[in-house]
Each structure stands twice: as C-alpha cells, then as structure tokens.
C-alpha cells in the first residue's frame, strides 16, 4: 500500500512542507481571499491537466491545449457577444469542438501512426493561428455586456465558500478517477500505455482506446477554455493560454506520470496541480521577482524527478 502510493505520498509531503513554509513566511497565504484565488487557479488549470494526464497514460502527449483554449475562448466570445447566440447552444458547441479536435488528434495518432508530439505540436501552431485569424487579431471578450452573469459565476463565483471552478475540478477529478482506476476503459488505457502490441494481442481495441484518450483531453480543454475565458473576461488571441500546455504536462509529470505511458494516478495529477499553483502563489506572496516564475517551476520539477529516482533506487 505504502509502496504503491510512494510517489503520491512523497508529493503530498513536499506540498505540506511548502505550505507550512509559506504560511510562516506570509500568513496572508491562509487568508480567505488568497485561498479563494488559489483554488480558482487550481480548478482551471486542474481540469486542463487532468485531460492531458489521460493522454499521457496511453504514452501520448497533448501540446495543443493552450492554443486550443485561445481558439475556443475566441469562438465562444464571438458566438455569445457578436452573434448573440444563446448560451445553451454555444457552451455545448464549444465542448463539442474541443472533443472533435481531440478526436482528430486521436485519429492521426492511432490510425495514421503519427507521433503524438508532432500531431499536437502542429495543433499548438494551427489553433493559435486560427484564433488570431478568426478574431482578426483583436481581443474578444464580454466587456460589460450583460446576460452572462450565471456563466461568469462558473469562473469567478463560489459555492459553499469554495470557488466554483474548484468544485467543477473536483467533479471532473472524480469522473476521470473512476474512468482511470475503476473502469474497463481505464484498464485498457494503462494496458495500451504499457505495451500496445501486447494489449492488441489480448483483444484491446487499441485504436479506439487511444482515440478516446485524446477526445477526453479535448473535452477537458473545452471546459477549461470556458472557465479561462470568463475569468480573464477578455481574450487576446495571440497570448491567451500561452504556455498552458506546459502547465498541464508539468503537473502530470510532477504528479508521478511517466511520459512513456502506463503510469500515474488521478491523485498524483491533483497533487501536481496544487503544488504548481502553490508555487506560483509563493512567488507572489514572498515578493520573489515574477520573472523567476517559470524558473521556480522548472527547479521544483527537477528536484521532484531527482527525488523520485533516488527513492526508486532504494526500493529496488
């Protein structure tokens, strides 16, 4: 038991240590405002990262999620504000487009045997271009337009003292957790990630399983895109969502997933996401120059990888 969740426990310990350190250095960390804020960030980035995690389990990767957030955000804003389409059409539409783009990645990877890195790198470039083109390179958003308050609440509101985004994240976590760890599809996802040839010999529909993973990532990106769009309220197509794919991959790797596939748990990604956001918060609260933001992230992931290696050796 202890051994099975070794990575997760290690991560939890690091997280606790960082939180305690932060609280001592700046008690503001535990203030309600800060907690609201940080859990909102965790919620939004978490939904994004969990989608990436499902793809990484199969031995793939998704680099397109950041650009996709921009494209979907622009489309949503234009649909709602400029075309005055009803939210009941636009919101499902955005999720469907996310899923469809994921499906496209999946088909290219599984049937046409293209490398996931290449496929989604092209996605990263393509969707960024598409977003800028559709929006004529102008920021799109909701400004002060009225009628979207309930939707805005998703990103900025709170239920029972918790930010709504975080609650949504918990729901997605439970769903994906059941999928990965309790369902037949989950077993197949891990089997494909470990050894797709042997999985095929055991009757796993490898092509379908791989495709589904990318569809899930696409839909999760859709949900996150909606939240990010309402959160920022204004979407600059050339910068909105930049580097988000790296947050996603970073959280997944920090959470104990192997990029070779077949490893990692939902608890791991959740802890990975939280740790990343706490580190961001640390940079803000401790007055570290914000230019060092990414450097701190990179440093911690490196330490995590080193620790993991050390523990692995000991266990063997």
């Amino acid at each position, binding site marked *: 038991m202890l051994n099975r969740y070794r990575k997760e426990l290690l991560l939890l310990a690091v997280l606790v240590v960082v939180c305690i350190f932060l609280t001592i250095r700046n008690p503001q960390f535990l203030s309600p405002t800060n907690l609201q804020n940080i859990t909102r960030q965790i919620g939004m980035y978490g939904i994004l990262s969990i989608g990436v995690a499902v793809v990484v389990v199969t031995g793939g990767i998704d680099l397109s999620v950041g650009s996709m957030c921009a494209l979907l955000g622009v489309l949503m804003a234009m649909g709602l504000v400029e075309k005055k389409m009803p939210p009941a059409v636009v919101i499902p539409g955005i999720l469907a487009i996310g899923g469809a783009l994921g499906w496209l990645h999946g088909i290219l990877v599984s049937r046409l045997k293209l490398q996931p890195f290449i496929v989604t790198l092209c996605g990263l470039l393509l969707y960024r271009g598409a977003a800028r083109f559709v929006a004529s390179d102008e920021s799109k958003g909701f400004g002060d337009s009225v009628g979207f308050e309930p939707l805005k609440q998703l990103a900025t509101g709170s239920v029972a003292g918790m930010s709504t985004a975080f609650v949504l994240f918990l729901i997605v976590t439970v769903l994906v957790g059941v999928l990965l760890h*309790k369902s037949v599809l989950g*077993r197949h996802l891990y089997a494909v990630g470990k050894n797709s040839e042997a999985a*095929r010999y055991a009757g796993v529909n490898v092509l379908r399983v791989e495709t589904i993973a990318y569809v899930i990532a696409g839909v999760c990106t859709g949900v996150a895109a909606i939240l990010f769009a309402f959160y920022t309220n204004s979407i600059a197509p050339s910068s909105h969502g930049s580097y988000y794919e790296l947050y996603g991959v970073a959280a997944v790797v920090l959470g104990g997933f192997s990029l070779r596939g077949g490893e990692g748990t939902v608890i791991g990604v959740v802890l990975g996401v939280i740790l990343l956001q706490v580190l961001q918060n640390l940079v803000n609260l401790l007055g570290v120059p914000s230019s060092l933001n990414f450097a701190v992230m990179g440093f911690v992931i490196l330490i995590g990888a080193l620790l993991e290696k050390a523990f692995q050796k000991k266990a063997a």
Partner: protein
Amino acid sequence: MAESKSLLSASNLTKSYGGVRALDTVSLELSTGETVGLLGANGAGKSTLIKILCGLVTPDSGSIIFEGRQVGPLSPKVSEQLGISVIHQERHALENLTVAENIYLGREPKIGPFLDNRSLNADTQVVLDRLRLDVSPSTPVQDLSNAQRQMVEIARALSFNAKLVIMDEPTSSLSETEAERLLTIVDELRSQGVTVLYVSHRIDEILRIATRTVSLTDGKNSGNLAGGEMTRENIIQSIIGRTEAARRSESRVAGEARLVVSNVRTTKYPDSPVSFEVRRGEVLGITGLVGSGRSEVARVIFGIDRPVGGEVTIDGEPLSLGDTLNTIKKGVFLVPEDRRNLGVILDFSIERNITLPSVKDAGGPIVSEAGSRSMAATQIKNLSIKCATMDQPVSSLSGGNQQKVALGKWLAKDARCLVLDEPTCGVDIGARGEIYDQIDALAKQGLAVLMISSDTDEVLTQCDRVLVFSRGGVAGELSRDHLSKDAIMRLAI
C-alpha cells in the same frame, strides 16, 4: 575420469526479493570439463543463481571462488573477464544492430579508432558456420525469427572462448534439429575442457549431455544426481518431488471441422498455400523446423497479419482476416510465441494480465474488482502459478510462470478454437502436465486446439494429428498411429 580440478565453488548464496527468498544458502561446485545439468521447477531459483554468477544480480550473502581465487563483487564485465559466458533465458539482443555487431558488442575489432567491419564480419562468419546458422553477419537482428535470435545469443556466448559457459534454457524456442546442433556443440566444448552449466526443462537433453545434475527446490539445494543415477524417473523426481510417467493423452474423438484454413498464403511464403482443418475436440499439432512458416499461419488466423490470399472459417463463419478483435469475438484465441513482448504485459500485475481480455465481458463499464480477482485466482490455482500475490508484476515471475499467465488469460474466456504457439516453452515438467490436462479438458468440451510446437516429445504425446511444415507449406500429415520422431524428421527437412 581423470582427477578433475575445481573451477568454481559457490557457497551459501542467498538472495531475497522483498518477502520472496529466491535463493536460500545455495552451494554449487563445478569442475573443469564437466557438463552439469541444473534442474528445478519454475521459480526454483535457477535463473537467479545464474544471474549471480554472471554479475547481473548481487547476492545478499555468500561467496564465490573461481579457479581457487575468491572473487569480489561480480559485475558482468568482471565475470566476462574471468571467463564466464552466459546464454540468458530472456534474450537481450539489440534489435537494430546487425548479427555481427550483436555478437561482438563492446569488443568490436578496430583499426585505430575505426570499426574494422571486414574482420568483424569475417570473425562472425566463423562462429556462425560453427553453428551452421544460415544468416549473413550483416543482417539486422530485427529481421530474424525468434529461434534465429536465440542462435545469435548462443553464437555470442561461444565467441568468448570462455572457461565456463552457462546456458539458461537455450533450446526452449528451438526445434529438434537446431537443438541437436547446439547439443553437439556442447559435446565439443566438453572435449575441449570447457565447463558447461545447462538448464533445460527438456529431460531428454539433460540425459543426452549432462555428466551429472544439481537440483534446486524452492531456492534450496535439493540433491545431486551422479552420472550413474541419471534416469528419466530420477530426474523428474528431483524436479517436482514425485515421479510422473510421460503422459500420453488418451485418443480423443474428433467431431466435425471447426477451424478451416483454406489456401492461406502468408507474406513470408506467398507461393505456398496452406490448407488444413481442426476438428471439434481435436488437438492438431504443427511442427517443423524453426522458420518453416508455422507462426506466420498462426498470426494470420488470429488476425494480426493480413495474408496475401486465402480464407479462414470458424464453424462455417468466415473470420475477417486482419481483424484481431473480430477473431477474438468469434472465440479464436492465440497464445503467441514471444511471451515477453506479446504474450503478457510485463509491468502489469498477474491479475490485470489474466483478466485483460475478459474484463469487458461482464458488460458494464465498471470493473468488478471481486469478479476480476476471483477469475485471476482460479487461473493461478489451476495452472499453479507460483507467486506471492496476484498483484505482483508479471516481470517478477520466473519464465515458466510468465508463460502460464499468458495461457491463463485465454483459459478464463470461452473459446471455440485455441491456437497455442509453443505453449509450454520454458514450463517445468510438472506444470506441463497441468497444462496438458487443461488442454485435454478443453478438447473434451469440444474446443478445436491448434498446437504449434518444436518439442517433439510434446507433439508425440499430446496431439491427435500432426502437420509437418517445411518452407512455408505443409510437407505432410501424420495420424496418431504413424507418429514418430523419425517420421517427423523426414518430413521436416
């Protein structure tokens, strides 16, 4: 025999993996020029002992004396320099290198800083000729069959001119003819004064070449047999703790045709159409030299490879060739030859491997933990898979037990036809009997069983009818009454 000189003396070797004692104060004495058979059931610790001797595994305690000198901590390099060379049970060849590069990996002949390709290939040719292995030194290993790869491993081990050659189930994927070639080489080695430690689950081979045997049971020394005591019965007794007559299956009554293969032409042998049928309740054997196209036909039946032409039907329904999922849905299963890469997922637990093909059968999207565990438990019990828990990864099982997992995952599912490619490769004689019993029971239930095997003994005792393959085609069919080693040999060549 002349007074023999001690070559290696290992004492009190102990090695534990977690809670499992793989070796428990084991000792081993080897003298110069003898050929010692190392015996033991699956998981007895044979491979672990061998890995210690070649420096791949560090023992928890114990000491090793080689040529009268105490040797410190062994590493593969040190062990090689001492003159110990090993053919491992699991192949290690690097796929993208050529035969020659694999054989001389790490000690390539050089001219200055540059690789001397000409003498590399020439040296390799000499070793290959000795094994009468008909491949070019510059062939990439990935283009070779399983057995040819095995021969390359053997060639590598021989190229060292070692004092001690250790062979861990070297013939398990070889057919009679190739195996015989290897045994002849072992004879040669002995006459040159080289010591050989030989592991095999094929009793005949032990009888043929060993000058004495050493046995392990559950990681402990369990007695030695001197040359004079080596009889089939004694050997079996020392492996499984009881004697067991070589069981010949009762003759079965075959019903109507179930699996019908018509004019199948594989991409490897597009000019040899293969046709045969397997009947209800029948075990049809396919044997022949390695590379004779047996596994290719199996892969076509299972839908892995698309054939150049031909048709396969099960109970009259055509299988859509090239579609494994459809084949499995129709109840036709394959246990492939390459168990480590295709037969099991090594990093997955035993339970997950066994239930992988059947988890979805329960219907719902959620796995029934209890159902899945009890399914695995049944197979572990029926096949006597030796493990600490069903949650341990298959990679931590001994070779023979991995094979049982590969088989067990299909036994847990309703089949109409089972295609078994070397089903008892590396399985000990006791467990082999259990697998045969299972096959027999399945045949009695009306299954059609197609058994591809290089093990002549197995073919002779377990099959109702045998097809002998040669160069991609069926060279002949032998009914049970006409089965004999000679008859098979005549057709195979």
